[in-house]
């Protein structure tokens, strides 16, 4: 049955959005942060982070259902004009910095591994320009584009695992606890905002056709993303071994270079690069859209889609500020740690306010 476009998206589109927003982090510089903190047990971190971010997310789900509103409306309903404005602004800053830092990190990967002579400003401009072109067409387009590319991307990732299988040695993930359980738990909590996108994407609750669709696709998307990241972290350790893996800047790209199909077809990284780049463009179109949405929400502007272009411009300028990838990793670490606190506590704050208001009324 062909449904008429109504600006809303269904389960598979929203799942694709979640997967492209979070799952793709297995291929950027996020694994580096995990390996620094978790050593050879880095793969456990995303699994624990899933639990850590899952609890506040379930609380948020119940609130979304009760009020039948997206994250921004929920904020303004519960906390009033000014407080919601401040929180909205915080979320906007997280998104803006996150988009800027990450887009630059992705471009540094492209620059180092594939286009060493092309100036970074040009690469960053091209990435954001194409992300903008998708984001400009609205959330429905983003969802449909995401669904279009996602199945191919997942198959490609699966083939990558198959192609490097002969180079794996799974005993390399031992000793199982790596740097010790205490360190793992601590790092999982401080790095849980890697999956914080799922809470930020609650802003689009009203864009999804029904609550059931939203709940299923968020949880499924989040679970699968955590699983994928865990599998790939374990795979990097099994192929490169610890401590060598912790000194590699781009393990995913190195893995695509190791992959080969028999003796003859050996340089297959270009295929991975192509599909990966398309996914990255969609990833940033989601993030640009979200950034504009939070900005408009915080300032209570009626229209937010015209803001996407200035946001893309702002992202470009912020993204050009850091000098190199190592600086960016430092900023990224800082951002992840600070936003972890806010994103985990936000649903709890909302729950308390909700209960308090309900109690007040009764």
């Amino acid at each position, binding site marked *: 049955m062909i449904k008429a476009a109504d600006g809303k998206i269904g389960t598979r589109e929203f799942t694709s959005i979640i997967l492209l927003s979070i799952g793709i982090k297995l291929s950027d510089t996020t694994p580096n942060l995990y390996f620094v903190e978790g050593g050879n047990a880095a793969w456990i971190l995303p699994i624990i982070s899933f639990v850590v971010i899952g609890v506040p997310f379930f609380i948020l789900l119940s609130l979304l259902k009760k009020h039948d509103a997206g994250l921004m409306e929920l904020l303004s309903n519960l906390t009033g004009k000014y407080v919601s404005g401040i929180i909205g602004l915080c979320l906007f800053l997280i998104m803006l910095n996150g988009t800027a830092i990450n887009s630059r990190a992705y471009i540094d990967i492209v620059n180092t591994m594939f*286009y060493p002579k092309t100036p970074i400003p040009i690469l960053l401009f091209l990435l954001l320009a194409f992300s903008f072109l998708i984001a400009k067409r609205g959330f429905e387009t983003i969802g449909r584009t995401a669904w279009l590319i996602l199945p191919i991307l997942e198959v490609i990732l699966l083939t990558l695992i198959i192609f490097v299988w002969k180079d794996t*040695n799974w*005993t390399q993930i031992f000793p199982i606890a790596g740097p*010790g359980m205490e360190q793992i738990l601590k790092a999982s909590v401080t790095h849980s905002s890697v999956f914080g996108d799922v809470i930020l994407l609650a802003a689009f609750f009203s864009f999804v056709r029904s609550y059931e669709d939203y709940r299923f696709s968020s949880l499924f998307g989040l679970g699968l993303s955590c699983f994928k990241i865990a599998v790939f972290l374990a795979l990097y350790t099994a192929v*490169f071994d610890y401590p060598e893996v912790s000194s590699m800047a781009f393990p995913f790209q190195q893995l695509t270079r190791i992959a080969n199909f028999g003796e003859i077809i050996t340089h297959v990284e270009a295929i991975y690069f192509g599909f990966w780049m398309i996914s990255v463009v969609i990833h940033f179109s989601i993030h640009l859209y979200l950034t504009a949405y939070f900005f408009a929400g915080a300032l209570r502007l009626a229209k937010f889609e015209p803001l996407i272009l200035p946001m893309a411009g702002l992202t470009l300028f912020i993204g050009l500020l850091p000098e190199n990838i190592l600086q960016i990793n430092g900023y990224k670490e800082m951002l992840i740690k600070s936003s972890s606190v806010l994103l985990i506590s936000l649903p709890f704050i909302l729950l308390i306010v909700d209960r308090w208001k309900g109690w007040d009324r009764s």
Partner: protein
Amino acid sequence: MKALKLVLFSTISLVLLSGCWDMKSLEEQAFVVVLGIDTTEDDMVEVTFQIANPQVGSTEGGMASNEPSSDIVTITAFDVLAAKELANNSVARKINFDQLRTIIIGEELAKKPLLHHIIASSIVDPEMRRETNLIVSKEKASQFIHANKPILETRPHKYFSFMQSRWLDTGYVPFSNLNRYFQRLSGELFLAIYASTERNELQRKNEDDYVAGQVPQKAGDPAQMMGSAVFKNGKMIGTLTGEETRIALLLRRKSLNHSAFQSFPDPVDDKYRITVRVMKKNNVKINVNTKKSPPEINVTVPVTIQVFSDTSLTNYTTDKENQQILKQSIKESLEKATKKFIQKTQDEFKGEPFKWNLEVRRAFWTMEEYDKYDWEKKYQYAHVDVKYEVKLENLGEQLKPAVINRQKKE
């Protein structure tokens, strides 16, 4: 309006998609297929580039039939990257490592601490790939590259690509690449392929008890690849013969592909040897008891035997008793050779090339505890017990050896 938009769009994409900055035209690339690294007396490196001539061996070959298949240039510089740039002073095409699959290191450099600095710094260059094979040559790498002129494979990249499959087949040499090198830098032994074009022929009964250069061979390509160079903490400390290399690969938990022809003394008629195919079809069971001091290591290696040659013409096919004797004798001779080799690693190399450290890692809860345990030291005094489980699978296509029956005639 629509047409104008289309034209505008195409023009813009023309500019964007051509990739002005990183444009590489195939014509202008010099693809290095083999890289040789040597040292000089003042700790500089001599880098030898073997650049493929793409015209030779292709359909265009008619036009370039008198050209050699590759151009070999040696440049002395401070590191590989500097040499790569410097080589362009005489090579008109841009030196490119995209097709590089083999690095040859002269033994003299391999024995210097400088080697690790050169390798670890060269991998920073994104053009360098981790799956590049690593070979140590007895003589200078540049000499090896110049002398190695295989007739069947005129194009050098093809030669090494085929050789790679043979390495996996025979197990005379380990499968060594940069990725594996970087995995074994903390006290474990890393084995690299050992090669030579210089001859120092010996004749031994045991066909795999040679290192490169010793194999009795007349005519053919002078390059021999046999045995392995042993590295510890990024420095070469010795060599293994083909036999020792095979044992080292056999004792690893998982092998890439172990199926090798090997000869053993014939247990019934000791004038002859019997050549069998030794295969490892299942993973080796390794049990390291770290609670005891010194640690106890129990290893069980399941091997499957196929008998395809039987020079003594003893009846192994229908005689069950002879089969038992053969199995027992192969088991004993494998165990004896293994014991001798393990003693050598403990006394001479003070480390193990069997990747048993990964099994030890399993026994610990955290990395800190494992580091504190100091496996490298503990191994030197460990009690190692290796048992082979021999299964006789196949006895060839003869029901009985064709024995000339003299008694009947007389």
